[in-house]
């Protein structure tokens, strides 16, 4: 099935309580699949096509306030519209899952694949000091798996998580093993797991309030310190990545999402020609595998960052390497996708000693 369809099926099976979305290419299959499956008749999941991405993310905010597992999906221009709500969700310390199946920008751009929302996803996106947990799937299987992972992390840390997929992973079809069905949580389970949730008082004896507002500056600074402590714990515990052929690598490619798979093919071709190249694929774009890239920068001669953008993740790679080795970028934009030969040619051009 398609990556977008895998997300929909995985959401139903995970026991998601609500999905709120708005059609936009190339992710409309998420909403379409959910409407086709009619999960309200089976698991009781709420599915609603909102009047806008702004409304959809605020529905997510409302649903998450009551402790429910809620999500939305969109593509780049729509995710820009959601940024207000994402900032509120982060500030109110609510768990939620947001899916961005990226298309080329800026502006209306193109419906073809892109990775140009890396900055937006990993550096905050909306206003204020916050981070999202950002998961980068490279396969349809990971599209399915990261729904559950995203929710697990979001509830563990009470912070929104994002699946940042490129349009290739959203649209391509692969075999996938869907997760088993699990029941949605009961009201009692939600009250126990989320004592902060606005479920109505229900004998609790005191009111719960979900807000991001604090007019007292010392208290607001304290709130910000708490957010930063959460982010520090996430950085300490939740970095995920995959390494390929790095044991003896003289050169390292760094790429995420479907581009990592293109790079892997280029690396296999290089190795067949006797060039020792490895690959690091960050799975979490935030938290970023800074330590791992720093360690590799002490072993390799140089790095090539390959992205479907003008050079975004390369900034985090360069910060990690602290100038120890040269770091170059090869990017395609506007929906263009490189083939493995182009990637290999870029590596040879940047490192002329490679024959």
């Amino acid at each position: 099935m398609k990556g977008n369809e895998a997300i929909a099926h995985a959401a139903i099976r995970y026991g998601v309580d609500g999905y709120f979305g708005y059609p936009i290419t190339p992710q409309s299959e998420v909403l379409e699949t959910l409407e086709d499956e009619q999960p309200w008749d089976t698991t009781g999941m709420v599915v609603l096509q909102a009047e806008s991405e702004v409304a959809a993310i605020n529905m997510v905010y409302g649903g998450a306030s009551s402790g429910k597992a809620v999500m939305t999906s969109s593509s780049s221009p729509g995710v820009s519209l959601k940024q207000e709500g994402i900032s509120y969700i982060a500030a109110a310390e609510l768990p939620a899952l947001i899916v961005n199946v990226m298309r080329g920008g800026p502006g209306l751009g193109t419906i073809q694949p892109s990775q140009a929302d890396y900055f937006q996803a990993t550096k905050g996106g909306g206003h204020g000091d916050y981070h999202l947990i950002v998961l980068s799937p490279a396969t349809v299987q990971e599209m399915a798996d990261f729904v559950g992972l995203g929710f697990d992390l979001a509830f563990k840390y009470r912070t929104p998580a994002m699946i940042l997929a490129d349009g290739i992973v959203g649209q391509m079809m692969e075999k996938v093993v869907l997760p088993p069905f699990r029941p949605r949580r009961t009201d009692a389970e939600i009250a126990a797991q989320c004592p902060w949730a606005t479920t109505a008082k229900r004998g609790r004896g005191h009111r719960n309030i979900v807000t991001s507002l604090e007019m007292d500056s010392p208290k607001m600074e304290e709130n910000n310190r708490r957010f930063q402590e959460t982010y520090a714990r996430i950085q300490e515990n939740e970095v995920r990545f995959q390494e390929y052929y790095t044991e003896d690598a003289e050169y390292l490619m760094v790429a995420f999402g479907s581009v990592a798979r293109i790079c892997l093919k280029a690396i296999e071709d290089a190795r067949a020609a006797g060039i020792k190249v490895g690959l690091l694929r960050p799975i979490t774009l935030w938290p970023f595998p800074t330590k791992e890239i720093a360690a590799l920068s002490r072993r390799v001669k140089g790095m090539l960052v390959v992205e479907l953008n003008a050079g975004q993740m390369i900034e985090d790679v360069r910060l990690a390497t602290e100038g120890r080795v040269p770091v170059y970028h090869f990017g395609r934009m506007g929906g263009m996708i490189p083939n493995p030969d182009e990637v290999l040619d870029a590596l040879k051009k940047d490192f002329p000693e490679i024959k």
Partner: protein
Amino acid sequence: MTPEEIIKPENKVYARPRLLDDRNTHYCPGCSHGVVHRIIAELIDEMGLEDNTIGVAPVGCAVFAYNYIDVDWVEAAHGRAPAVATALHRLNPDRLVFTYQGDGDLAAIGTAETIHAANRGENIAIIFINNGIYGMTGGQMAPTTLLGMKTATTPYGRRADLNGYPLRITELLAPLDGTCYVTRQAVHTPAAVRKAKAAIKKAFQNALDGRGTSVVEIVSTCNSGWKMSPAKSNEWMAEHMFERYPLGDLKNI
């Protein structure tokens, strides 16, 4: 008579509602918000809904409503309360979910959320405070500001050619198939307060009964923003606001 002789339970005709917190509000003296808060607190108690209610607070003067009425509250982004309430109610369908919004929140920045929640017939109650001005930010023009009315952003009076016309959004909501009860009330006299209370009670009951969206507009005063005394504000409202925003039911099915 000494005060002790007067203060006896049998002489008590008026008390703070149990669910209205005993604390100073940030509202200006004479503002209509206090009266409407009181009505809501009384109704939630009288209808036995304390344990079953989720309020959605706006951005605007009522942003701290959650500090005054003792039920669960979600503080929404500016204008987004109907979207927030939509999800709260769909995911918790046996609860009373209501929004409490001002004119800037509901009729300007949140117009889309308001119209579409009402058009979907979300089973929520929308309490809409229309005082014709942005109170919290310092008295700027609202969509409902009357023509000729002076505000911080219409210092020479609102002009139709520059600023458009005062928006009667309640009249826009009444014809929608999703609304079951749309009414316009005020709280400037004891009789009006009693009518407003009956209207909000009906709106809450409609939401509980799943009859669709109810909208209760309360034409209100903002004596600070209008730069009048509370008493003068009530007179001015009856004289000018009711002409543009006449009281009564627009829809009641």
